[in-house]
């Protein structure tokens, strides 16, 4: 009984940590530019796919990871520079369609380069599962959680301790005021997209050995990250982490105890329930709207 519960919990926390990282990426971009980036999932895909293909070409793992993350970062900058920035004051829906167009474009490129097959990545360390109170823990789960935690702490330090981080925060609060005190907001926006792409690609790399990877994994993972971000309250970093973990655990429990066919339905019902009672998510800021 207990071991079963523990098993579902492990699964839930592992996948939840991935959702949290994707949600953090959404949050970052949303905060800086009030755009929901529907191409967020593609950063994950790029991270995983590039690492797999580079290692299979004989590039050492560490170098492959660095190159894959760099590639995603460049993609993030390009997305902001060439697709979001030129649209300037477009409608919310128009921006959504632009990022959807971008995600289709990136997915198409990935399909051209890497084909439609599933790719398998080896675990970072041993394939030997760890036994905990009768439940089995994949060693890769520890990597996901560890790297996830490092990234979250790093992000917090980045925003509170570095000038660039503070500049992003300032831009998110008031773009005009930030520009007045000498912050180059255009640079900051590009940076936000880049950091968000870095986060996404790292999430994609650490989770690839567990979920496999293919050119189209970005759609569903991106959506789950979006759900997690909205549950937490768009724009809240804590909310993104809590929302991601909660979504992962609830999903794993639902798959285990109810029905695995309906595990996605549980995730989407959860977002409806949260929004019905807390229209701004769990940690969303109460914003007074000026008319």
């Amino acid at each position, binding site marked *: 009984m207990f071991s079963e519960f523990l098993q579902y919990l492990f699964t839930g926390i592992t996948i939840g940590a991935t959702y949290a990282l994707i949600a953090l990426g959404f949050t970052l971009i*949303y905060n800086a530019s009030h755009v*929901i980036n529907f191409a967020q999932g593609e950063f994950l895909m790029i991270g995983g796919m590039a690492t797999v293909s580079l290692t299979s070409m004989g590039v050492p793992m560490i170098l492959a990871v660095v190159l894959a993350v760099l590639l995603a970062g460049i993609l993030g900058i390009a997305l902001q520079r060439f*697709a979001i920035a*030129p*649209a300037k004051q*477009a*409608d*919310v*829906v*128009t921006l*959504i*369609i*632009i990022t*959807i*167009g*971008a*995600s*289709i*474009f*990136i*997915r*198409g*490129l990935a*399909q*051209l380069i890497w084909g439609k097959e599933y790719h398998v990545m080896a675990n970072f360390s041993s394939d030997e599962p760890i036994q905990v109170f009768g439940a089995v823990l994949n060693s890769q789960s520890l990597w996901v959680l560890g790297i996830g935690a490092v990234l979250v702490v790093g992000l917090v330090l980045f925003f509170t301790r570095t000038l660039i981080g503070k500049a992003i925060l300032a831009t998110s609060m008031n773009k005009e005021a930030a520009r007045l005190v000498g912050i180059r907001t255009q640079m900051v926006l590009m940076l936000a997209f880049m950091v968000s792409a870095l986060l996404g690609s790292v999430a994609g790399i650490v989770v690839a050995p567990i979920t496999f990877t293919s050119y189209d994994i970005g759609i569903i993972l991106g*959506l789950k990250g*979006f*759900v997690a971000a*909205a549950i937490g309250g*768009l724009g809240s970093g804590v909310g993104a982490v809590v929302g991601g973990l909660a979504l992962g655990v609830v999903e794993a429990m639902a798959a285990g105890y109810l029905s695995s*066919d*309906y595990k*996605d*339905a549980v995730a*989407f*019902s959860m*977002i*409806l329930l949260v*929004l*019905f009672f807390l*229209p*701004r*998510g769990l940690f969303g800021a109460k914003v007074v*709207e000026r*008319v």
Partner: protein
Amino acid sequence: MLNRFLQLRLRGLIVLAIILLCLPAFLSNPFHYDLATQMAIIAATVVGLNLLVGFAGQISLGHAGFFGLGAYFTGIMTGTYGWPAVPALIVGAIVVGFIAWVVGRPILRLKGHYLSMATLAVGFIIAIILNNERAITGGPDGMPVPALDLFGWELSSFGQYSLFGLEIEGFLAWYLFASLILLLAVWFAQNLIESPIGRALRSVHGSEVAARVVGVDTAKYKSLVFVISAVYASLMGSLYAHFQGFITPAVASFEFSIVLITMVVLGGMGSTFGVILGAVVLKLLPQVLADFQELETVMFGAILMLTMIFMPKGLLPTLTAVVSKKFEKKLEKKAGGAS
């Protein structure tokens, strides 16, 4: 005379009717007719969605859910339970309208990204149910749907009909029927927009708070238009099911929801004829790009992005703005030359 015609409120409808009637001259085989009929049905769906997105300014990323519900309701009632098509279509629309009303009331309190998230969730839940209730829906494999039976008169792409003494093929008959439906859908939408309800909706789009201040019951109108657009989707889903003769959960998928909203935005939010153009372009594009095979997805994404970046108001409003600007310049020149 021409001027009077141009001022007519229904001129767009007349132009559309003429285009629809002349189109068969350019359609040469059943495949073309199949595409044109699908286009008409989907365009009518998008005209309904535009009432919600373009006029009331409320985003829906789950509209395929209602389209799918309509399609499956018809499929199950006529196929499994042997209902006649017309009652199945109407009861389906009522049921879907009711569902939209129930979920719409709490959802429409949300704004912007939260609303898009919630509608996306509703669409997803519908698609997941259709996928998993294999006993009723056939699951991912889909289910067959009988031909459309209009009061004992069966409309099928494979039939032969005589109309006013003319022998016509089944696919042409379906095309004409779908065109008629599209015209009705546009006519209803245009009347709604010009009615007091339409004015109330546009005030909600402008500023919801201001609308409420002047006494518009915004919650009521928002759920009303949500229900109307869902009923549009349900009816068109039912027709689509009969036309195709076979449905899979793809009719309710997230991808299809995205296609529908993209048609609205691409064509031009708030412009009824713009969104029809959007539907035509987006339905034709994959056919044109199919020649590029592997590059198809990349090009589709690129075209989508570029159009939205450079024409954020959508195709038709941008084009008409360009044309009328040129026209004005010409008039100015003429006036300048005369004086």
